[in-house]
């Protein structure tokens, strides 16, 4: 058993490959998380324009990409776009798919945050001459983000986990590299390494989330 799953020799051999994977996972996360946050913020700001001409297409957009399984979306972009004469690499496909999918999730979270700020805040700001955008930026958004911080963090956790989908389109992230190492060594140890690394990477975030959630509960009492 130990030979199969915790083989020290294999670990030593696979380490450089797995490390490359870890590095790419971090890089991928550092690209898709800000991209998703940006997309979400744009969606939420557009949704704050209470105009049906903006609102309905927006709701359809958000619903569509939240209902669409991200893996299917990714494969569709990767395998489908070349037929439309557009050949993007795996990395670009992951970035676009995440922008569409997680952006919609982040968008809903930001929207809930914006809605949680009392209208009196905007009225006070506007009564002193701040524009709609200034009121949003200096008064509403800071409070909105604080109010939904646990949800933002929780979604970010999901996004980092979802980066493992990149392996399907040959993005050399952690899972992909671990599987490469596994197929070279004929041993599952690299996969175990990847699992442990995912855990060590995400566990601090999980702890932070718990603390934020507890504090939010305490604050509500």
């Amino acid at each position: 058993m130990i030979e199969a799953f915790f083989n020290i020799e294999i670990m030593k051999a696979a380490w450089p490959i797995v490390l490359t994977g870890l590095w790419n996972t971090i890089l991928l996360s550092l690209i898709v998380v800000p991209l998703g946050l940006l997309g979400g913020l744009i969606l939420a700001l557009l949704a704050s324009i209470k105009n049906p001409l903006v609102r309905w297409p927006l709701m359809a957009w958000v619903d569509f990409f939240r209902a669409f399984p991200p893996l299917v979306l990714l494969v569709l972009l990767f395998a489908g776009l070349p037929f439309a004469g557009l050949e993007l690499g795996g990395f670009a496909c992951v970035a676009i798919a995440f922008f569409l999918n997680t952006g919609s999730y982040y968008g809903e979270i930001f929207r809930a945050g914006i809605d949680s700020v009392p209208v009196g805040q905007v009225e006070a700001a506007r009564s002193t001459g701040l524009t709609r955008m200034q009121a949003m930026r200096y008064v509403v958004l800071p409070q909105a983000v604080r109010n939904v911080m646990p949800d933002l963090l929780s979604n970010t956790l999901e996004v980092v986990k979802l980066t493992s989908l990149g392996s399907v389109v040959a993005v050399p992230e952690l899972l992909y590299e671990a599987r490469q190492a596994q197929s070279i060594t004929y041993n599952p140890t690299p996969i175990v390494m990847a699992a442990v690394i995912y855990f060590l990477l995400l566990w601090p975030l999980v702890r932070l989330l718990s603390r934020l959630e507890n504090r939010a509960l305490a604050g509500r009492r």
Partner: protein
Amino acid sequence: MATNHIVDARAIHKHFGTLHVLKGVDLKVDERELVFIIGPSGSGKSTLLRCLNRLEEPSSGSIVVDGIDMLDAKTDINHARRRIGMVFQSFNLYPHMTALGNVTLALRKVAGKGRAEAEALGRVALERVGLADRAEHTPGQLSGGQQQRVAIARSIALEPRVMLFDEPTSALDPELVGSVLEVMRGLRESGMTMIVVSHEMGFARNAADRVVFMDDGLIVEQGPPAAIFENPTHERTRAFIGQIQRH
């Protein structure tokens, strides 16, 4: 549209859907005048105030404040609002900023002052409401009365030409009302033009130049405090004054 009144609102109508809330209100206010608006709940007092700085869009009518046509599409509404302070029943301080941050935000972003100048002006404004020593406190660390005084400081820091008060003391514990009224009295003595919606009849008697009684979206009658309180001419005014004096 020439006018020698600092506030000149004419024939203001306001509909919320099918609800007709303001039914042709005329309100003219002289410079340095303190106008006190009373009336039953739902009579349209808040809506009238909110139309004056266009937080609410009147359905029809005209509003000129300090020579600026507030309803003209060409008017820079954000610029115009700087000149009209507003104080809310629920304070509406920004909870994520200190008292000083609350007071300096518009100074910096609307009036375009640099940080140092904005903070100096902000401290002067806090001083005027007796809270110079609370500049670094957040609203959560202040009493209701202190919060409302910070809200007043936030308005006066912009040197408004007119101040609108919408039930500024209604959300306060009775023992905190006095400090806010005192600040308002100080403002009046400094010559500020004020329109105040409130139930503080004692304050109205000794600080107001004119009391306006509203009912059902209309101004029913108006006059000096003594006349309205001792000798109201309309039955509805009499009933309302009798009602609040019994409390």
